[in-house]
């Protein structure tokens, strides 16, 4: 029964999306406004279909309906409720369903916001592009990625249960959802980019209208990436949080191009420049989300996340090719006529700094992309197997990261157009001294090593620069009689909060990767050992067993305080044992206890102990970045009338978010 209703939901979603496309296209081609105006109704039908499908899937998972092959393979009677619910995105077909309903949701918000502008060609074609992507995903679920396929024969009495790695940590409930909210969100700006190019109306600020979509998608993607790193740190037991795995790169690539876009779109709004570049970044960002999904879902690259044996590879590759080639053709066709008049006047200006920032981000993306797909090229040419690992990515990532920190410090202090002599020196004197003081303090504290000292110094530089901007904004708010806290709201100021978060992440990253210590300890109950200044005492070794798993755990007291329990579990129905690390997290450092061997019978425990400083600041910094992005998405101060507004239709102001449309 679930299978039938699920299929009906998917079919309804597909039909709604197709009907909306037909209404919009006919409305445009025939010039019939009324026809286009019916599209939101069909969009609602699509959303309804998606919700029915998702609801059915959740019902089947929670009710353990093993007549669905997906449920039988990813759920068991002992699976706790939370992991039954999150089971939807624990394997390929369900994650396509999640993708589809998120996309439907975004398109519904878009259609709702712009329902009175649907006769505008840009809006109509943008919605058509977004809906076409939705059609693709609904069709996938009726074809190669059917989440509601029936279990052949009689349903089994019990299912296999989710992958043991996916039923141990609540973060897994949220990481994929945030990641997909980010991935999928970029469909909307992409759709507007394509529509702007197709209609030739590039300069009208429709990109600005979708800026908030891009910002929200970027925030979700950031949170998704940070949660993924946090999950891998807490669960995988190697003490690391980023491994340049293809799927991590797949999430990181669109993040890089989207970050570049969020900066360069400001140049377009202020100066009308870089239009084609911005459109290219949006096409690249969307294409990279699809490419990343293809790489990790088709099985062409080895990855911890790869779902093997799925038939959706060719379809995703086709969508990727269509998106990039469509974008490339449109840009080649329209690009030269749509180029903005004017140019960047001086290198030492805000737009000049944004340009450098964009080149760095784009270069970083290229480096990561090459590192991810190069092995495939080598294999295609001479059949050699080759892997590109950490050293390659670190060799490029470190200098690019340091350069980004440097420009992050300078850019906010630069004025638009042209910096008068002395301006930069005046504005950066405090941040520069902060950098010097930071390095001096680090050296004084006994830290050595060029890379971490540079990172700390530049982080001090960038952090002080961002704080200076926030202090100025707070003072300006106070002068206008507002609460200084409003100095945090709005794009520029929210952006500075994001910068602070990035600085915190950079410090954590540099510290953890430069000053970590690792040791392998073998202990018997009562024995103690010291690792990097921490006293570890093994209290006991225990076996445990409950309906969903059995295993053994070690009770380890850290520094005479809390007791931590690294364990080796075997989940029911599975043979592989899964080590569950236990982490004593502190503001200064983390003591990471990863079980290597626990034998309750012999009362011996071997632990892999990793002590890394400042790890917790990675997550705090990530939260700060998300907070900053939220603040940036809130409407800020109104646009000054002297600024060249990119919005040519003041009547749109009512339809658009105030930060974009507030032309007075």
């Amino acid at each position: 029964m679930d299978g039938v209703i699920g299929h009906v939901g998917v079919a309804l979603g597909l039909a709604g999306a197709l009907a909306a496309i037909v209404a919009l296209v006919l409305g445009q081609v025939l010039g019939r406004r009324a026809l286009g105006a019916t599209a939101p109704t069909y969009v609602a039908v699509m959303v309804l279909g998606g919700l029915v499908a998702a609801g059915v899937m959740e019902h089947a998972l929670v009710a353990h309906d093993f007549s669905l092959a997906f449920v039988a393979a990813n759920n068991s009677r002992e699976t706790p409720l939370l992991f039954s619910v999150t089971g939807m995105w624990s394997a390929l077909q369900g994650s396509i369903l999640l993708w589809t309903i998120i996309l439907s949701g975004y398109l519904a918000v878009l259609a709702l916001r712009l329902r009175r502008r649907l006769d505008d060609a840009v809006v109509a074609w943008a919605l058509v592009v977004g809906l076409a992507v939705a059609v693709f995903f609904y069709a996938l679920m009726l074809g190669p990625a059917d989440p509601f396929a029936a279990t052949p024969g009689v349903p089994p009495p019990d299912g296999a249960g989710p992958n043991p790695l996916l039923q141990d940590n609540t973060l897994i409930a949220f990481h994929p959802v945030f990641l997909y909210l980010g991935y999928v969100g970029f469909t909307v700006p992409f759709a507007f980019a394509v529509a702007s190019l197709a209609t030739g109306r590039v300069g009208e600020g429709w990109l600005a209208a979708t800026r908030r979509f891009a910002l929200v998608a970027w925030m979700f993607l950031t949170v998704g990436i940070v949660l993924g790193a946090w999950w891998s740190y807490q669960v995988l037991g190697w003490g690391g949080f980023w491994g340049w795995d293809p799927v991590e790169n797949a999430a990181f690539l669109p993040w890089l191009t989207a970050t570049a876009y969020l900066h360069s779109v400001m140049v377009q709004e202020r100066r009308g420049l870089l239009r084609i570049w911005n459109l290219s970044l949006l096409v690249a960002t969307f294409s990279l989300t699809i490419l990343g999904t293809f790489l990790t879902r088709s099985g062409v690259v080895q990855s911890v996340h790869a779902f093997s044996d799925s038939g959706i590879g060719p379809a995703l590759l086709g969508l990727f090719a269509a998106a990039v080639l469509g974008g490339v053709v449109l840009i080649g066709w329209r690009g030269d006529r749509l180029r903005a008049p004017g140019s960047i006047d001086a290198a030492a200006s805000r737009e000049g700094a944004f340009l450098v920032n964009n080149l760095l981000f784009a270069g970083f993306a290229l480096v990561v992309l090459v590192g991810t797909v190069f092995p495939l090229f080598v294999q295609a040419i001479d059949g050699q197997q080759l892997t590109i690992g950490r050293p390659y990515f670190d060799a490029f990532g470190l200098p690019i990261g340091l350069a980004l920190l440097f420009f992050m410090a300078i850019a906010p202090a630069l004025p638009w157009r042209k910096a008068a002599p002395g301006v930069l020196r005046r504005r950066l004197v405090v941040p520069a001294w902060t950098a010097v003081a930071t390095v001096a303090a680090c050296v004084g504290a006994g830290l050595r090593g060029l890379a971490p000292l540079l990172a700390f110094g530049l982080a001090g530089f960038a952090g002080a620069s961002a704080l200076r901007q926030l202090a100025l904004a707070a003072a300006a708010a106070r002068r206008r009689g507002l609460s200084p806290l409003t100095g945090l709201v709005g794009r520029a100021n929210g952006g500075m909060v994001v910068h602070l978060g990035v600085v915190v992440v950079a410090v954590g990253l540099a510290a953890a990767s430069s000053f970590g210590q690792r040791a392998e300890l073998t202990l018997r109950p009562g024995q103690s050992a010291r690792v990097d200044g921490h006293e570890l005492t093994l209290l006991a070794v225990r076996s445990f067993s409950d309906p969903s798993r059995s295993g053994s755990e070690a009770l380890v007291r850290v520094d005479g305080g809390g007791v931590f329990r690294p364990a080796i579990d075997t989940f029911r129905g599975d043979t592989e044992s899964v080590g569950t690390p236990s982490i004593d997290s502190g503001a200064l450092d983390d003591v990471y206890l990863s079980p290597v061997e626990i034998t309750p019978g012999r009362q011996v425990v071997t632990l892999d102990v990793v002590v890394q400083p400042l790890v917790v600041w990675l997550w705090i910094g990530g939260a700060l970045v998300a907070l900053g992005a939220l603040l940036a998405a809130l409407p800020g101060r109104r646009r000054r009338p002297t600024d060249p507004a990119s919005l040519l239709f003041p009547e749109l102001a009512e339809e658009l978010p105030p930060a974009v449309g507030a032309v007075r």
Partner: protein
Amino acid sequence: MTGRRGPGRALVAASAAGVVVLALVAVLATRHAAPGTSVPSNLGGRPAPPAAGRDLLTGRRVSLAEYRGRFVLVDFFASWCAPCQAEAPALETLAFRDRRELAVFGVAVKDSAANARAFLERTGATWPAVADPGESIALAYGVADPPQSFLVAPDGVVVGQILGQVSVAAVDRLIAAARRAGA
């Protein structure tokens, strides 16, 4: 990016990007899926690892070694696995077509003995099948995920492997190939 250069710059850049992307797509489209669960076994031509245990249905001890002199299809299955249910009729046919030529020997993998037994009863399987509690048999055969089957020749050497659902035709092809090779 700075200033008005000659016309056609976007066209040139877009064309270049297009060529690169086409090359990328061509390479990606011609890659075979990396071995995920479907690793070709290196057991081919080697003696089949031993498999023995109590038959899940009858409780008597059975061992793969007893079937020397016939082809044996060693079938790794689990009750929760959909293709394992789908392949049951094919196994039924194979098991009873000519008992002197071919026997079927099931090994439950990643499954509890109780579930596997219920599964066998439901699918009407009457060929010997054992549980593999320590997963030692699955490990010896390199089986990570069911269904997977191995064809063992009368001399006890592994001569074929089927990844995924078994079909009668596939097994016949493997037997024919083994015969040609002189097994």
